[in-house]
């Protein structure tokens, strides 16, 4: 044969441009502005906490997962997103443990990328919140210009040692204030982000923009955030109409707490959300209902994480019941 050695592959012989690592690294890229905003509001602590969580995730993925799987970028996303759901003052070792748990138990025991049932980042956070409830609910106030360089709280506490909450200015989150003091926070603060809370729950607007970019490129299913926002807004408006003192309005509900980050980045995790579009609508609605229920009647001020985890558990069932209707299963319709 004179020709070069031929190749045979199964059809199709062409592939669309997107690849899994490219999607993942795009998501990482889109998180950078959010991380930058967190740094702007909370100082260097933000970078440290996110870096520690990411290190926990990546180290675990590298040492326990298959070789070379760090390169697909998914562990980095897990780490960054986990970091963004933590308070700025969290001891770094805790963030590291959270990342390791999320990847180890949330992902690798299921067989690694694509096989897990629960969102690894949120599972890591849930683990941390159950393990160290006090540290996870101690929120430093956003830094003001003068003390921007100060680390928020106990970043450098030694492993296994109770943090001493040195002298950090802690403050209640907008949700905590709403729930336990019936005090509202101005909407502009929520939209632009100068409120206390987890690193990633500062500027709702920015998250909306970054997530919107991913939705436009079809890296996430836009139906999930759409469904979450619509359902949450509807329920909140309804409850607010019934009892304005206890229940906040739609905009507060959407922009407070982790809802924005959760809806844009975590409920949309491809792996742990339904594959069918109908499933995605239901999934989103379920998340929103649970968030509103937990925020309104639950013991916790915030329920985004738990809502997403609970709905994650329902995803296999949703996938099963929302199978598309196969072409050709409609009764025969003859044209006249």
């Amino acid at each position, binding site marked *: 044969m004179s020709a070069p050695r031929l190749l045979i592959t199964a059809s199709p012989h062409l592939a669309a441009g997107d690849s899994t690592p490219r999607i993942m690294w795009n998501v990482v890229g889109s998180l950078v502005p959010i991380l930058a905003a967190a740094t702007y509001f909370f100082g260097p602590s933000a970078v440290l906490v996110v870096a520690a969580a990411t290190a926990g995730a990546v180290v675990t993925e590298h040492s326990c997962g298959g070789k070379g799987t760090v390169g697909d970028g998914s562990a980095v996303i897990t780490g960054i997103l986990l970091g963004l759901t933590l308070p700025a003052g969290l001891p770094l070792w805790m963030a590291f443990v959270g990342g390791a748990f999320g990847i180890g138990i949330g992902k690798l025991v299921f067989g690694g990328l694509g096989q897990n049932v629960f969102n690894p980042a949120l599972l890591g956070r849930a683990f941390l919140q159950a393990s160290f*409830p*006090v540290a996870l*609910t101690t929120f430093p106030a956003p830094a003001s210009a003068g003390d921007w360089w100060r680390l928020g709280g106990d970043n450098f506490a030694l492993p296994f040692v109770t943090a001493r909450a040195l002298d950090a200015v802690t403050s209640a989150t907008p949700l905590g204030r709403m729930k*336990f*003091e019936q005090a509202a926070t101005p909407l502009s603060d929520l939209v632009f982000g100068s409120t206390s809370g987890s690193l990633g729950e500062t500027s709702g607007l920015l998250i909306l923009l970054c997530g919107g970019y991913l939705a436009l490129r079809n890296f996430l299913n836009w139906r999930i955030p759409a469904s979450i926002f619509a359902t949450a807004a509807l329920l909140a408006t309804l409850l607010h109409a019934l009892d304005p003192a206890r229940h906040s309005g739609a905009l507060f509900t959407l922009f407070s707490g982790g809802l924005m980050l959760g809806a844009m980045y975590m409920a949309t995790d491809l792996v742990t959300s339904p594959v069918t579009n109908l499933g995605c609508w239901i999934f989103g609605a379920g998340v929103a209902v649970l968030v509103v229920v937990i925020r309104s009647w639950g*013991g916790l001020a915030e329920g985004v994480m738990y809502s997403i985890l609970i709905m994650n558990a329902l995803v296999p069932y949703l996938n099963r019941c929302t199978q598309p209707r196969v072409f050709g299963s409609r009764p025969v319709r003859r044209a006249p």
Partner: protein
Amino acid sequence: MSDGGAIRATEQVPVPAPQPAEVRASRLLATLGVGGAVAGVLLVIAYGVTLPRIEANRARVLHLAINEVLKAPERYDTLYVVGKALLRKPPPGVDPKKLEQVYLGYGAGGRPVGFAIVAGAAGFQDVIRLIFGYDPKTHELLGMKVLESKETPGLGDKIEKDPAFVDQFRGVRVSLVGVKKGKRSSPREVEMITGATISSKAVIRIINDALERLGPLVDGYTQEGKG
């Protein structure tokens, strides 16, 4: 793949095992009947032997709790809630264990110091049951002790373990109001535990609810001078 399918002629066929004969019904009756009777005897004996200890244990726990919330009274009486009244003796024919009870403590010289009341309701995880001492004359609490709770260790369980929280219930005036830590400004107020607002609120609510229900009875009992 079909050679040697059936067994060869030289091989023996296993002897079929005989089916065991059926058991007579009388044996079944005897076994279970005798077994049941013996078990019944054993149980009664075990119960009888341990009952005194068990009741003593219960009494001791109650006693300690009353002691704690009524600041170590000389002695205390058990009063029974019957309808809208407190009675010293349960009405005849009613099992006293089924009636709600409050305890009236007496200080030195037989002076009544206050009532100990047991109450419970849902907390963060599950039901919280507690006992508190109440002085109807001053409308102040004398103390509070959690008897039973499943609140989160490290957070909610501070309602029983954190002295800073528990000690507030000495001398606070009813009805109670919960406030954030460091915000206490009136004798009615109780500072709640940071990170366990719900458990703290539950304690306050349990006490307030119990007094709303039993307060008039207790006050009435005191005014009638029986105290």
